[in-house]
């Protein structure tokens, strides 16, 4: 009786174990949605106008709250109305082709349709105002916005990432006067300061990672 398999079948059968392992890793990494690639981190979305946070924040020194007006008072930080853009752009760059959508919006009254960069899922209760009130900086969650020529997502907003701070807020919170300061550096004696701030702002750590805090 002739052999069923050729000699090379030995190497194929052994290699198939390794290949199966690689396929498994690939499936977990891609299907599991755990890599920056699948989360599309640091990829700038297409926007109607190429707005640069770097230019407006770092170079011109405009405060976050000038545009995101409701961040201290409401769950939603707020997207500026076209009139806010016009406080300056009625005077400067009035003929720039980059600003055409802004002028169109002003003329027709239809708001500019920006694409959302940081999107918390609907099953998460999220409120900007309480985070600001307890010393969480914009930059802690949104990344170095002052360095973004085009706005991108720095973090994937995964639950584990939220819990990092909810379980251990003293490692992340700042004094309130530093919340909007892009140049703030974490001081060396931060551990002591963090504990102090947790005390001062009345953060109740023991219930901060309960399910109902975010899933209501």
């Amino acid at each position: 009786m002739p052999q069923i398999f050729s000699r090379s079948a030995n190497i194929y059968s052994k290699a198939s174990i390794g290949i199966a392992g690689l396929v498994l890793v690939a499936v977990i990494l891609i299907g599991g949605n755990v890599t920056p690639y699948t989360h599309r981190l640091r990829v700038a979305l297409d926007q109607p106008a190429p707005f640069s946070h770097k230019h407006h924040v770092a170079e011109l020194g405009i405060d976050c709250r000038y545009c995101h007006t409701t961040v201290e008072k409401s769950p939603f930080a707020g997207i500026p109305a076209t009139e806010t853009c016009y406080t300056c752009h009625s005077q400067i760059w009035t003929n720039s082709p980059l600003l055409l959508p802004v002028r169109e919006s002003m003329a027709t009254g239809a708001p500019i349709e920006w694409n959302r960069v940081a999107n918390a899922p609907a099953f998460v209760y999220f409120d900007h105002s309480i985070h600001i009130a307890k010393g969480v900086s914009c930059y802690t969650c949104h990344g170095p916005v002052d360095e973004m020529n085009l706005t991108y997502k720095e973090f994937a907003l995964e639950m584990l990432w939220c819990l990092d701070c909810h379980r251990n807020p003293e490692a992340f919170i700042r004094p309130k006067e530093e919340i909007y300061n892009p140049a703030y550096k974490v001081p060396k004696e931060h551990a002591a300061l963090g504990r102090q701030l947790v005390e001062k702002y009345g953060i109740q750590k023991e219930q901060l990672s309960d399910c109902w805090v975010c899933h209501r």
Partner: protein
Amino acid sequence: MQTLEEKIGKHESDAMLPEPMIDGEHDYGSITSKIDSIVLTNKFAPGWIFALMLGMGALGVMVLTLAFLVFVGIGLWGVNIPVGWGFDIINFVWWIGIGHAGTLISAILLLMRQRWRTSINRLAETMTLFAVMCAGLFPLFHTGRPWVAYWLFPYPNALGLSPQFRSPLVWDVFAVSTYLTVSALFWYMGLIPDIAGLRDKVKSRVMQVTTGMLAMGWRGSVAHWHRYESAYLLLAGLSTPLVVSVHSIVSFDFAVSILPGWHATIFPPYFVAGAVYAGFAMVLNFVIPIRKWYNLESFITDKHMDWMAKIMLTTGLIVFYGYVMEAFYAWYSGNIYEWYMMYNRAFGPYMYLYWALIFCNGLVPQFLWSKKIRLNMLWLWIISLIVGVGMWLERFVIVPVSLHRDFMPSSWGIYNPTFWDISMFVGTFGLFITGMVLYFRFVPMIPVAEMKHQWHQEHDEAHASAGGGH
């Protein structure tokens, strides 16, 4: 020097020879061809096709039920507070219990060198595999969102969460998944020499390559057999604790709670005995017709049936002792809730099920004391069927009957299964029958290599030593 034979006399030396477990006129060749001939044919018997269609029809019912269940939600089943666990958990415990006979036969009887296990071990192991699959479907779909069932495992995840290790439901996940894995490995390991045997006989190129790949290069060399025997023994060692641990952990799902009727220390041994009891009943239920249809009486002898019936009787008595103790402790505890639970079982709205349970599991198996009945296949089959029903009733009496009336009369309710509960149960039978029917036809259902090994021990070795030839 005196030989052993001279010392103890011819008669006793004969008694020390292994008791033959293979009946009829056989040799090595006829054992192989008898078992392999079922597989190595292009013909399909009409009865086999009918059984397959029956199984697949019921399997179709399950697919429809599950599709509708996922679409609507588990409210489709009759479960609601206070009875959150209904048919789904009853059937889970029932099916998983059935699997235990397979593991007991393949692992514990192997370690105890009970050679008679050889003829039935693959039948029982295959039953275990499909029974665990049927069982697993219930909790999987009871979660309501089976597509995120992997959350049950502790793995590094983006949610920053871990399963609650203090919950027996999490232990259950580990117990059942380990059980399925080890059973599948054990089953496949034992199959390798037999697949290699088929590989050397099949004619078509496709079948040669398929069986060749499944045989993983088995050539039957001494080195192969040496590794095979050690691996098989190691797997048997791994499976042995599973016989006890899996159903103990399933019983913890109940015993760790504080509900009267569940909160009982007797549960683990009582559940394990019940599992083996139901498992042997199921083995008998399909082995009795199978050995007749395929003329396997010379391998699965009346002695096998007799001994399986004895195991069933023994475990049945342990289970019945459990029922008596439940009643005794309900009284002895002096706790009104425990006592009411017992009263409610015996005289409450589900009293007929309780007394049917006592009849099926307590009284009917007593007939097995008679050797005549143990060797009458029709009666043995009917008794096994009744035991299977009885074990299902036991889970009904434990799960919903305990839940439906707990401490506070204001939270009492009545549980009624819906059409979909029944269709799901029927559907798991479809999965089981389909799997078993395919196995009967496409896999050598009795381990050929081990049977020949046993034949060697019973005849050649025996003759050699009896003749004092060595």
